[in-house]
């Protein structure tokens, strides 16, 4: 079975007061977090941590070699779910906002290296625009053995129509859907445009000289532990491509 961690930030008053961001508060942060937490625990998976508001720190996902503490938190669980504000940098790095500078106000994916000798397989971020479809390779460095990053390529919605997204993603995962399908199906209400995207890396057989063998990819095969196939980790030396799957309307 899997271990997982959850972080959710709903209020950003501290970030606003310190002139870090104009980001408004969210409404359904903990509906999302509680939903996936409840579903995964109901299937026997183990919650390792669930931090809220200013107990969510950017060092939790920053690589330990880069001054962070991921080996104790995000890279110490199989699945990590976070809800906060997000965006991306010009070079394609994802970034996310915190309401406390512990030790920085934002995390940048250029400082993530997930899955190394540690644990992380899947990171799920209900945050706007952390993936730039024109610069997806800018996310490459985070895949140090991690399988799939689930995020958004434009805005996501804070609305009563999306409050169940965490529960739906969790339910899909424990019903045996692939991680990629669980995310895109779970956060889509096919009414508002949540812009879901799932990103992974693949080997040379998957790249296949540019004629992609999609059936070999994590996107097609990876399930949550205990609910189907989980492919082997792919160390950086064997990574030959980055692949992404998204919904648009």
């Amino acid at each position, binding site marked *: 079975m899997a271990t997982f961690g959850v972080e959710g930030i709903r209020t950003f008053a501290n970030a606003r007061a310190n002139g870090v961001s104009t980001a408004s508060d969210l409404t359904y942060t903990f509906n999302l977090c509680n939903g996936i937490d409840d579903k995964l625990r109901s299937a026997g998976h183990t919650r390792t941590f669930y931090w809220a508001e200013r107990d969510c720190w950017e060092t939790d996902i920053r690589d330990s070699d880069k001054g962070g503490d991921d080996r104790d938190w995000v890279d110490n669980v199989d699945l990590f779910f976070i809800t906060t504000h997000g965006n991306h940098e010009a070079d394609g790095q994802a970034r996310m906002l915190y309401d406390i500078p512990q030790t920085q106000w934002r995390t940048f994916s250029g400082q993530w290296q997930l899955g190394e000798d540690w644990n992380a397989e899947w990171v799920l971020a209900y945050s706007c625009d952390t993936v730039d479809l024109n610069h997806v390779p800018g996310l490459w460095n985070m895949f140090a053995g991690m399988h799939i990053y689930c995020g958004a390529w434009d805005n996501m919605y804070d609305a009563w*129509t999306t409050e169940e997204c965490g529960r739906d993603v969790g339910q899909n995962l424990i019903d045996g859907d692939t991680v990629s399908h669980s995310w895109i199906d779970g956060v889509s209400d096919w*009414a508002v445009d949540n812009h879901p995207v799932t990103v992974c890396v693949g080997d040379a057989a998957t790249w296949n000289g540019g*004629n992609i063998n999609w059936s070999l990819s994590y996107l097609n095969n990876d399930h949550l532990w205990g609910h189907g196939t989980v492919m082997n980790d792919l160390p950086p030396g064997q990574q030959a491509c980055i692949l992404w799957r998204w919904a648009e309307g």
Partner: protein
Amino acid sequence: MEQQQLVNELAGMVGPVPETVEVLGLQQHTPDAVEQRMQRLLDLVGDRIGVRPERRDRVREDDRSVFRLPLGGRVTGYHASGAVHLSTGLPPMERLIGPERARDELLAMVQPAAELLDMPGWTGRDEELVFERLWQIKACAADPGGTRAAPVVCRAVGAYRHVVRGLPVLGSASAAVQVAADSQIDTVRVFVRSTTGNVLDTPRSLEPQEAALRAVRQLNGLIPEAGRSFSDIATPVSFRFGYLSLSKRAPQSLLAPMYVAEVRTDGEESMSYLAAVPGTETEYLPLSRVGSGPATSQRRPPH
């Protein structure tokens, strides 16, 4: 943007608003009735997905029923709303549609699958399910040298809207059909709350300007401190009038008129919001605008 400008722009986006609107009763489903809807969906598409409708295992859980189908497929029915969802279990990167296609071509792929659903059979008198939006699920890849593969269309999704007495039922899509290559059904959702035919009340509609003001006041709560305003970072996207459906796990006894404002915030971190406010002076359909608290009391020591 000044608050009054945001109000004015939203109010100017709404379509025609009738002077009065009927508040309508909704059917409440027993788990048995929900399972009948699940069976109906399976009967409609079973041949097409290669499943004999009688070949399924039934599991009844707290808030839903599930029919397990061969090859990882399932039909799920939600007891609170009667929403039903069929998934064939097709792996997401198999049976791909192929290179990018024209919208009309994808619509033509969705249409035969949608016709199988017998959409009029899910709605009542003076109601219909109308096409709303085409969605696509695509995939792409790149190598370390920056060479990009051509994007591929994995699935096409047709989304449909329940319209009751001329008004849309706002919320999640009322029906959605997701197809793979050759119009092969991948997933189907039907989320139509069935009306009873009873008219509970016929109130006057709220004026758009007043409704827009209430929506903006609601959104202002997202930046509560003095000296700052949500309107400062807001861009209006749409303002709609119609009935409203809660989420599929939420019970609902009636359809009442509501206004729904869609607003996007700008800045270093942006977000999209929907704000729903009653379409009448009386609030018939309470909608939680508070959100849950965290399901944890765990606190971490200072760093």
